[in-house]
């Protein structure tokens, strides 16, 4: 179909015949520039064999069992561990990601130099294709599931963003040092910090569909209500929705509970973290996942 057009632009036969003789000599391909692991192979070999999968995320370790400090990254990291997919982590940033935000996975086999990049949007399907089957058979299209997911991605996430990015004391003591560890030199952390804060403000504004930024107390109250609902949902079960094995939703809850309970958050965010401590079953749930997979 496209061939007549292609023929028009095709080089004349004698040119093609001439081109086919060049280059006259083909040398073998050169090695790639070394990575930090190639530079210090003995240091990198301290933990297990290097894995073929690398999760690029907000982390300060290359060890896949060290939790990320970012909920979106920790969610996928936890789910990968729950599903028993071997992987290393690599400290990275949003610029590196094909989707514009972390995490993403690079699968590569060192032998043939070819790698595949899986953005977080396609990570779920990739895991289904590459991991062994799971006992977690929760219906992710169910109304209940979606409602609780909304609660988590709305109220809880807003409280997280408000506490860590909008609250100036946490921004400067926790968020900026963690996220600008690659470039800790004046004035870059301050500039990036104010950009992150603005992005968080925009994200919070978008979710409750009002243009004014709600007061911190209001956001924190909603988060407490959400935790209360999640605590009731979990009840005395081991995993959410009464599943036999931890699943995506457990990973998602853990991503927030682990970070809220573990970080020393000050201000109003600290009150939320403290309040979360009252829901014993959520605290146990966090500990269950942490002990088993981290």
């Amino acid at each position, binding site marked *: 179909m496209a061939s007549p057009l292609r023929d028009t632009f095709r080089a004349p036969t004698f040119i093609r015949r001439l*081109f086919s003789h*060049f280059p006259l000599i083909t040398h073998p391909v050169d090695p790639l*520039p070394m990575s930090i692991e190639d530079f*210090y192979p003995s240091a990198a070999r301290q933990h297990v064999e290097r894995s073929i999968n690398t999760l690029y995320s907000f982390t300060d370790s290359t060890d896949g069992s060290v939790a990320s400090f970012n909920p979106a990254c920790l969610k996928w990291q936890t789910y990968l561990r729950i599903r028993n997919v071997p992987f290393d982590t690599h400290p990275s940033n949003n*610029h590196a990601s094909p989707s514009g935000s972390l995490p993403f996975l690079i699968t590569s086999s060192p032998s043939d130099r070819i790698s595949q*990049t899986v953005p977080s949007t396609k990570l779920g399907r990739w895991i289904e294709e590459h991991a062994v089957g799971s006992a977690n058979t929760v219906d992710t299209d169910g109304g209940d599931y979606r409602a609780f997911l909304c609660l988590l991605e709305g109220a809880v996430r807003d409280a997280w963003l408000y506490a860590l990015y909008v609250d100036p004391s946490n921004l400067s003591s926790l968020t900026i040092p963690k996220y600008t560890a*690659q470039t800790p030199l004046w004035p870059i952390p301050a500039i990036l910090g104010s950009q992150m804060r603005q992005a968080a403000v925009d994200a919070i504004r978008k979710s409750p569909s009002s243009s004014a930024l709600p007061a911190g107390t209001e956001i924190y109250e909603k988060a407490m209500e959400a935790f209360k609902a999640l605590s009731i949902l979990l009840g005395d079960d081991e995993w959410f929705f009464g599943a036999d094995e931890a699943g995506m939703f457990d990973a998602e809850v853990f991503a927030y509970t682990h970070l809220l309970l573990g970080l020393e958050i000050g201000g109003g965010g600290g009150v939320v973290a403290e309040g979360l401590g009252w829901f014993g079953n959520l605290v146990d749930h966090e500990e269950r996942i942490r002990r088993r997979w981290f």
Partner: protein
Amino acid sequence: MAAGGSGDVFDILKDAGSPDTIAAQRAAQKAHDEEISIKAQRRAAETIQGHSSQPVYFDSITVLGAPKTRRPFLERLVKPALDRSDQGDFTLKDALRELSKAINGLQHFEIFHPNIPFYIDTPSNYVYDPKTPNNPIPLSAIINVKERSRILLKSGTDLGNTEGSAYVQGSVRNVFGGAEFLHVSASKGTRTRSAYDATFTTPINSSPLAAIELKGLSTARDNSHSSHTELSRRFIGTVRWATPAYKLKQSISYEGLWRTLTELHEDASASVRRDAGDSMKSAITHLLTRDTRDNPILPSSGTLLRLRNSIAGIGPLKGTVAHWKSEAETALAYPLFKGITVSSSVRGGILYPLALSGDAGPKPSTIADRFHIGGANDVRGFQTGGLGPHSGKDSLGGDAYVAGSLGLLFPFPRVGTDSGLRFQAFINGGRLLALERPPDVQDMNIAQGMKYTVSRLLSEAPSLAAGVGIVYGHPVARFELNFCLPIGVRGTYGEEGAERARKGLQFGVGVEFS
């Protein structure tokens, strides 16, 4: 009755206003004026010649017409002439030479209109005493300058290396009355997608040979050959000086750079993703240039030597990258016969990783610091960044390289050598390698690795391409259209990690070709 005669008068009157007549009259007037002025000049020259050995001294040198220029700045320019005069043994010839030096100095700064007349007279109270003709005669000199407009606004299009751009710029001349320049510009281009630049330059001690330059620069550069866009904001402070006797130009600069590798292509390789994001470089660079070429765009004779050394990240410099980067470049142009010239160039560089202050050991280089070679005005017959290590379609760059070219330029038949048109035939090539660990060594030792890499670089066959083409050397840029064929390439087309050669036509525009 007198129709004929009156007709003549009318014709003359009518003709008087016609453009031809006016032009003829003007030409005649101009020729007359020129003749008078030539005669006057000749007379003056004869007078001066006749009295060139007359002892004199400067009673005063006055610079007129510079209300916005600071007095100390002008004093420093004129002082050498006065000092020389005070030493005694000073003739009229010396006086004229010293004045002309001072005027050259004034012209150099581009703050005055280039035509600077001067007058010499004796002071009004001086009375010539014929009894003592060998007593030095006092002179008062007047240099009549005209300051150029202080503010200059300009917009236009420009050609740089492999790219075109459109710009707006504004300059303020003589900001503080000492030939300081402030220059701001914004441009949008094909490869450097946007650039904003503010530069302040000031001469050191009124010298035309030394200057300090402070520059703030923000650019967004499309590095498609490595699947990303590089944003950078930098501050550069430079001290530059020249040694005219050896045609040497040198500079030492400090650069603070914050760059972000972002907007990665969907198929960007893992190596590019690893280096994406923010980094900060803080470096000191020394640059030495010795250029004797008759024309840098299309040289037919002369040599070029350029050495660039920079140190980043160590000790108090800080930053997030640390290395020593050293590059050398030489070029030679030699006229053969009948307007045919031979030109050649050799260059090379190494990037030697160092330990950041506070770090235990050196870290590997990043894609933004490594060398990328290949392209229409670099190593022809290869794509931009076409040589060296590749992953997917990305040029990853290397830590050591050599490149060279040998070419012949022939004048166009019937056009001659004055036009910028030439035919050319060339062969060029290069080798770009990433730092490697010697095969039998376990842990990385940088010195050992660099030694091994450089020995490979020099002992193995380079990647080569040859071609013929047309060159047009325009005063602002050089245009080339070449038909290239690769001779030696690493990896076959389509193979993972292969170099990216280019067969067939390649078009290049640039200010620097190698």
